[in-house]
């Protein structure tokens, strides 16, 4: 018989029973309150091994199956409860063992309790970006000028500037998107760009489409655009080559760098925002509108630069449809004058509908009071209401 079952003592003790009266075993069992778990024990009361063990043995085909002694979770809740009640005085032994282990840990000579948090291992930090100290990459610099140009004059100036820049880069055979490194040109440079004209040779070709007003402008612009893109890399290379060898040189370089940074910082805080394109008016040259944007690289470069200058961004379906600079301008100008959202506005704007004598369009819901007004009885109703003091 299992120990757990023995603990339960399911039958009434013999001393409590009346010796004269015979009570059968079944009735004796019924007379005792018993936990429902007892049924499980009863079922296998005659077995020395539990059913789970027997199943295991059967499955493995041996009397000593491999694996844990009881892989089915050990004893049940009630079994453990009854056992604890029985073996309470015996629990002192394991407690003593754990205390001994704790003592052994505390006796470690190298252990010193910390007084401050410094030098302790940080707990709870998962190395996420927000926990790390700020780096250079975290500083945000805007891609565009943070302004949205709305006047058609400015938009055409931006398109013209973009066209001149990209055709120059096309001619110089440089990566087109490099121009986006220069967010805004200096005024003299912008003036040179503005004076240029665009005359695409055939079918909107970009190569050598720029017509310079004079030789000087051409040389200046070519010189400037040669620097764009490659300028930073070249500067970096130069810096590495001419690295300060002595400590004094290093200090001087640091001071210079600090001064330059200060100067940049001062420049970055203008007192008043400058007018877009230095207050220049529209460009007379409209040749840039004929430039083709069928080449995806050119199209991407044009839209990127144009977005940077104007603050207008293009959704993907629109980008797909665009095939020339004229389309870009059309889209941007159409954005300025959105279609009326209300049908009444649309119908009122429709000249052919307005010319018909039998059509009336109302912008507001027509109520019974409108009918009264139309039939000429509204005044009478109002007068009557006033007379009775109801209005």
């Amino acid at each position, binding site marked *: 018989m299992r120990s757990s079952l023995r603990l339960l003592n399911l039958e009434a003790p013999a001393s409590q029973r009346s010796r004269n009266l015979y009570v059968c075993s079944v009735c004796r069992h019924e007379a005792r309150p018993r936990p429902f778990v007892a049924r499980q024990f009863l079922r296998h009361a005659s077995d020395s091994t539990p059913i789970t063990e027997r199943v295991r043995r059967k499955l493995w085909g041996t009397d000593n199956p491999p694996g844990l002694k009881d892989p089915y979770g050990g004893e049940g809740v009630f079994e453990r409860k009854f056992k604890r009640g029985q073996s309470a005085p015996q629990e002192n032994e394991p407690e003593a063992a754990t205390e001994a282990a704790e003592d052994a840990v505390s006796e470690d000579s190298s252990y010193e309790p910390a007084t401050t948090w410094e030098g302790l291992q940080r707990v709870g930090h998962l190395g996420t970006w927000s926990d790390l100290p700020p780096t250079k990459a975290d500083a945000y610099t805007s891609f565009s000028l943070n302004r949205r140009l709305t006047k058609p004059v400015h938009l055409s100036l931006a398109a013209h500037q973009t066209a001149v820049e990209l055709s120059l880069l096309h001619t110089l055979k440089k990566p087109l998107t490099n121009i986006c490194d220069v967010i805004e040109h200096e005024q003299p440079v912008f003036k040179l760009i503005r004076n240029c004209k665009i005359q695409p040779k055939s079918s909107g070709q970009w190569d050598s489409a720029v017509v310079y007003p004079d030789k000087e402008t051409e040389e200046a612009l070519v010189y400037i655009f040669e620097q764009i893109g490659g300028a930073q890399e070249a500067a970096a290379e130069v810096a590495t080559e001419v690295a300060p060898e002595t400590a004094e040189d290093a200090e001087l370089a640091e001071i210079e760098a600090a001064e330059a940074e200060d100067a940049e910082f001062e420049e970055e805080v203008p007192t008043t925002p400058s007018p877009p394109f230095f207050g220049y008016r529209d460009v007379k040259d409209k040749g840039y509108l004929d430039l083709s944007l069928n080449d995806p690289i050119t199209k991407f470069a044009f839209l990127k630069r144009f977005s940077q200058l104007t603050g207008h961004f293009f959704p993907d379906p629109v980008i797909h449809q665009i095939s020339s600079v004229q389309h870009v301008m059309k889209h941007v100008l159409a954005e300025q004058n959105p279609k009326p*959202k*209300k*049908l*009444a506005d*649309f*119908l009122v704007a*429709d000249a*052919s*509908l307005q010319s*018909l*004598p*039998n*059509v*009336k*369009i*109302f*912008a*507001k*819901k*027509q109520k019974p009071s409108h009918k009264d007004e139309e039939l000429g009885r509204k005044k009478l109703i109002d007068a009557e209401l006033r007379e009775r003091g109801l209005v």
Partner: protein
Amino acid sequence: MPVQGIRTVTAARNGVGAFILQCKRLDFHYCDWAGSSRGMVSFLKNQLTAFAKENPQIEIRVSPRPHKHPVIKGHFINGREKAVCVRNLEPEQIFQKANLLKQNSGEKNKRTKKPVTSINESVRGIWSPYHGGLKGV
């Protein structure tokens, strides 16, 4: 003086000498927001001009009816009104409904039981039990 027969003149009926359209006004109501007015909005945008040109004798009024289904309301010269809800209908279907109201007489719909109807009086007159020959029982 010779006996003269009574001169019969053609009875005045709509369509005999002239035809007067019974529908005098059509109101088109729509909602700018609701999706059930999509077809109506499209009809008003694209087909109303042609419809109004075709029917110069009908007054056409277009007005919004916010947060309600689109409706065409016909006003007839007999003083009655007929309204047709055109929710979720296509512009073509709305055009058919507008034509239905345009061609309507404005009378209440009646069930036609007989294959032939006439507004002429019966030639034989109404039967009376006190007239005519007595029948033997």
